[in-house]
């Protein structure tokens, strides 16, 4: 395998392919697109958390100037009006009842957005209010009203096979168990037990949801800000009973996702608007509406951990309740991930975890960067620190005694750990030593996490190699800002022996690119990157046989060189080989690769995503305000295809951790979301970044991706909130088990802390 230093283009921080277009405002986003004859849709939203729809009068709205149609749930009877990749519980527009404030009840299509907006105000809906449940305990109470009283069909991509149970308001239940936890607790030297709360958070992206749908006899074309176009295609094909080739998803640049753009969101509404009117329809939400579209699951975690007298873990038991909101969305998968990611990168011999995703009458929860790991690493790493203190062992030492070494199995049946986590931790430890003694009033902490990342290793890639030497990569991965189009081009340029300027990545169109399951779970570099590499190798294998044929020699007599082939004094570039093969100008060949869950990808997950971070904070003890002073991340990415991009992902992830660790929390007052706007919901700013930031990459080439690469982008988020809480404890002696660590919450904890 090539090692760092051997690469021409890979492992170099080449400039981003999309950088200039984005900073000069020329990059095309879905919002920028206007189609001929395009109309606009606006959505009327439910003012009730739970109510039966008695009647909807659309007559006045239909008469409003510029209005083409007003669509409600009852107009969708000839379709399959419920969608959902996990559970088909989500009506395109409310049918019979509404389940949260903000749920789409009707859509107006008009010649312009203002006419559509004005007509919304003319729709009369009569509701009969039903009792609502806003929180997990209320939803699980025996007398609780059922939020979903009908049986739904299973979605095609629930994400896993075991432990699927749902009843009443429980959307998903997952149990993870090995060993005998009860017996281990009974005989343990030390046990810590606590309850933790992770907030309801919104994965804010600068671009809110936007989609343009164009339905015609030929099929359905949808432009969208979607992260997983092939998953959305599945839902749309199912709704309209169309063949896969009749649904075309086009994804221009996407203005950030962080989980919020995964799976189907507003595309079905735009699609039914176009289906009804026969015109292309654009539906563009405001940020305030995006707050009402999806969010991350908030979590209550009751957790108990035991260790022996030497500080070796004996057992962990946890009961996790996720507030999943009104619809399943991706929460069944978040539920499964929360259940197993609470282990961390540690060896725990006895484990017993129950995780429930519970429906409530709140905004539906779905993916949030980290998929459950963020929710459970906070309790797990807080509790690990408490145990370390209880037995009087240094936090590094305590972790070292329990971390899995490379090749050890932390979760029976899954891939052994493919990283040197103790080595990563030692990097933080030596940085802490370099920083020296901690100043008075400050606190320092380390944190780590392990996530079964990558999702299903099902993907494909295609490359065109042209007779002039240029190369196109056809990839179904979405460039969502993470830099994937640059990374994939680097891999193709490296393999085909051409400069970056000769490589073009063609993506974002399901009619052109082969299948890619999704763009999430930190998978693109590992899986799509590997598919691109294999497609290049497959193209080169063809080119070697073409060269042998053209030269009239055995293929074994040829020597493959960077960018072409040599036989004695004859040296041909790949372009020349193609031209000689076809004896024609401007020709090209196709290389392709498919990845399946087989061979070295048979064991799930495709790779472990490790998060290892260190933080130092200061605390204003009068106001309770925390400031992050120092941050260190170790991006354990196997090999960074683009080191600057990998570090950018780590910094972004850590910053998101600062957000949910210190500020971000959606607050309901009764049935009403009270802070669903950027004026009220505080996301991190540049000024919140630590003045002192160190980003390190661990490049041990131990991943299943190209050149031993593994994914990053979530790892450096997951341990941050716990790290901040542990640092707060170090600084002040106040232990806070509820996020975010708002100044007021910290101030109260400071008042209540035991006097020393």
């Amino acid at each position, binding site marked *: 395998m090539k090692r760092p230093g051997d690469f021409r283009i890979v492992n170099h921080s080449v400039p981003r392919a999309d950088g200039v277009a984005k900073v000069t405002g020329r990059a095309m986003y879905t919002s920028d697109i206007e189609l001929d004859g395009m109309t606009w849709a606006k959505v009327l939203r439910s003012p009730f958390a739970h109510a039966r729809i008695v009647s909807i009068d659309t007559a006045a709205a239909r008469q409003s100037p510029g209005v083409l149609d007003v669509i409600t749930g009852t107009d969708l009877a000839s379709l399959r009006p419920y969608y959902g990749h996990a559970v088909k519980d989500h009506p395109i527009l409310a049918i019979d009842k509404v389940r949260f404030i903000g749920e789409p009840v009707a859509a107006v299509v008009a010649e312009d957005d203002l006419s559509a907006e004005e007509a919304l105000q003319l729709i009369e809906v009569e509701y009969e209010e039903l009792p609502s449940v806003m929180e997990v305990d209320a939803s699980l109470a025996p007398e609780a009203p059922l939020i979903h009283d009908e049986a739904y069909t299973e979605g095609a991509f629930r994400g896993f096979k075991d432990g699927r149970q749902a009843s009443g308001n429980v959307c998903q239940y997952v149990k993870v168990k090995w060993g005998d936890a009860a017996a281990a607790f009974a005989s343990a030297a030390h046990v810590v037990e606590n309850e933790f709360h992770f907030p309801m958070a919104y994965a804010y992206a600068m671009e809110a949801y936007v989609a343009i749908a164009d339905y015609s006899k030929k099929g359905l074309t949808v432009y969208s800000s979607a992260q997983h176009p092939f998953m959305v295609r599945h839902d749309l094909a199912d709704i309209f009973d169309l063949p896969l080739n009749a649904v075309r998803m086009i994804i221009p640049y996407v203005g950030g996702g962080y989980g919020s753009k995964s799976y189907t969101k507003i595309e079905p509404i735009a699609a039914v608007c176009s289906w009804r009117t026969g015109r292309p329809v654009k539906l563009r939400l405001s940020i305030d509406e995006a707050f009402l579209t999806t969010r991350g699951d908030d979590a209550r975690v009751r957790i108990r951990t035991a260790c022996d007298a030497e500080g070796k873990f004996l057992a962990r038991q946890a009961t996790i309740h996720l507030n999943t909101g009104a619809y399943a969305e991706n929460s069944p998968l978040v539920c499964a991930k929360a259940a197993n990611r609470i282990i961390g990168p540690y060896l725990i011999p006895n484990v017993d975890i129950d995780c429930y995703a519970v429906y409530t009458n709140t905004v539906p929860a779905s993916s949030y960067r980290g998929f459950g790991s963020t929710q459970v690493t906070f309790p797990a790493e807080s509790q690990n620190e408490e145990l370390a203190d209880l037995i009087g062992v240094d936090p590094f030492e305590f972790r070292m005694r329990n971390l899995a070494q490379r090749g050890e199995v932390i979760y029976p049946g899954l891939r052994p750990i493919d990283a040197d986590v103790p080595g990563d931790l030692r990097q933080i430890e030596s940085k802490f030593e370099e920083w020296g003694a901690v100043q008075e009033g400050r606190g320092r902490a380390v944190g780590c996490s392990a996530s079964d990342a990558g999702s299903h290793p099902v993907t494909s890639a295609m490359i065109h190699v042209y007779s002039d030497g240029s190369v196109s990569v056809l990839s179904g991965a979405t460039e969502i800002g993470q830099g994937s189009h640059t990374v994939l081009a680097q891999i193709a340029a490296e393999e085909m022996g051409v400069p970056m300027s000769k490589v073009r990545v063609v993506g974002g169109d399901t009619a052109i690119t082969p299948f890619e399951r999704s763009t999430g779970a930190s998978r693109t570099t590992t899986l799509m990157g590997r598919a691109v590499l294999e497609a290049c190798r497959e193209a080169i294998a063809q080119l070697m046989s073409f060269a042998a044929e053209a030269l009239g020699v055995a293929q074994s007599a040829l020597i493959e060189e960077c960018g072409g082939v040599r036989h004695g004094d004859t040296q041909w570039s790949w372009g020349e080989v193609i031209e000689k093969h076809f004896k024609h100008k401007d020709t090209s060949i196709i290389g392709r690769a498919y990845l399946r869950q087989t061979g070295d990808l048979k064991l799930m997950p495709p790779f472990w995503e490790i998060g290892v971070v260190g933080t130092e904070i200061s605390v204003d003890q009068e106001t309770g305000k925390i400031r992050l002073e120092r941050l260190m991340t170790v991006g354990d990415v196997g090999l960074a295809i683009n080191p600057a991009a990998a570090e950018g992902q780590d910094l972004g992830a850590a910053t998101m951790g600062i957000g949910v660790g210190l500020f971000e929390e959606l607050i309901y007052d009764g049935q009403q979301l009270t802070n669903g706007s950027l004026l*009220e919901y505080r996301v991190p700013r540049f000024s919140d970044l630590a003045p002192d930031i160190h980003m390190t990459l661990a490049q041990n080439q131990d991943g299943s991706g190209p050149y031993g690469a593994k994914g990053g982008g979530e790892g450096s988020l997951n341990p941050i909130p716990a790290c901040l809480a542990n640092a707060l404890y170090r600084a002040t002696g106040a232990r806070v088990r509820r996020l975010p660590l*708002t100044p007021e919450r910290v101030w109260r904890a400071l008042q209540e802390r035991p006097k020393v």
Partner: protein
Amino acid sequence: MTPLNRFEIHQPATITEASRMLLEHGEEGGCYAGGTELLLALRHRALQYQHLVDIKVIPGLNSIQAANDWIDIGAACTHRDIERSPLIREKLPVVAEMESHVANVRVRASGTIGGNLCFAEPHSDPATLLLALEAVVRTEGESGARELRVDELINGAYSNSLEPGELLTSIHIPVLLPVQRAAYVKYQIRERPALGLAVVLDTPDGGATISQARIAIGCLCPFPRRSAAAEEMLRGSREEVEALIPQAAEVLADDAELIDDNEGAADYKRHLLGVFLRRAVARALDGA
């Protein structure tokens, strides 16, 4: 994004013409003086004006001038104009400093001081400081010109005492005397401050004693206010004043009718008042 309702924009040449336009459109009309608050309210349909009178185009409304011991700021001056004005920086550095921390640079570049005061958003930084500085606002309307104190202009959350057709034309701020020290401090986690506190202290002897104090608080109450009782406590030697700060803060807190909301519980805000009153006094006297 939610589109704005349909409206017509009017660009008057004079204050008189603007006044006439506002009178003509009555409830359906409003002033457009920068739009940083107005456009948000229009997008959320909290306001539904069909006519906007753009007062920024009226000549002379964006000047900053000195006259005797007063500084005169035109109502249409942006926060950025004031923050960068050499005259303000020299004569009223506390105002320049406060303005330089209003919201963010985009808001400062388009939002105006007059719009800020008239809109009477409870989280206004300028209103609190101007109240402590005993600034006077000048208005013009059908019934002539008036001069009002800031707490006469702002009479509630999002509420002002302007009469129909009456416009705020300028803000008149007395220059600080050599014996006066002023400071504005605020506490902010989210987009808007949760607490604003201004002090103006008269000290004839370089900070050893305080002969008179003015304190204004904002953001945690519906509109900025002063408390004569609290101000009375902050007279005497610096030591005496500092000892009474907790009590003065309690008085301020009692006056403020603090409530529990997403910005904090009332008891936390009460505590913050004590912290920031002490910090404001220290900053005024020590400049730090």
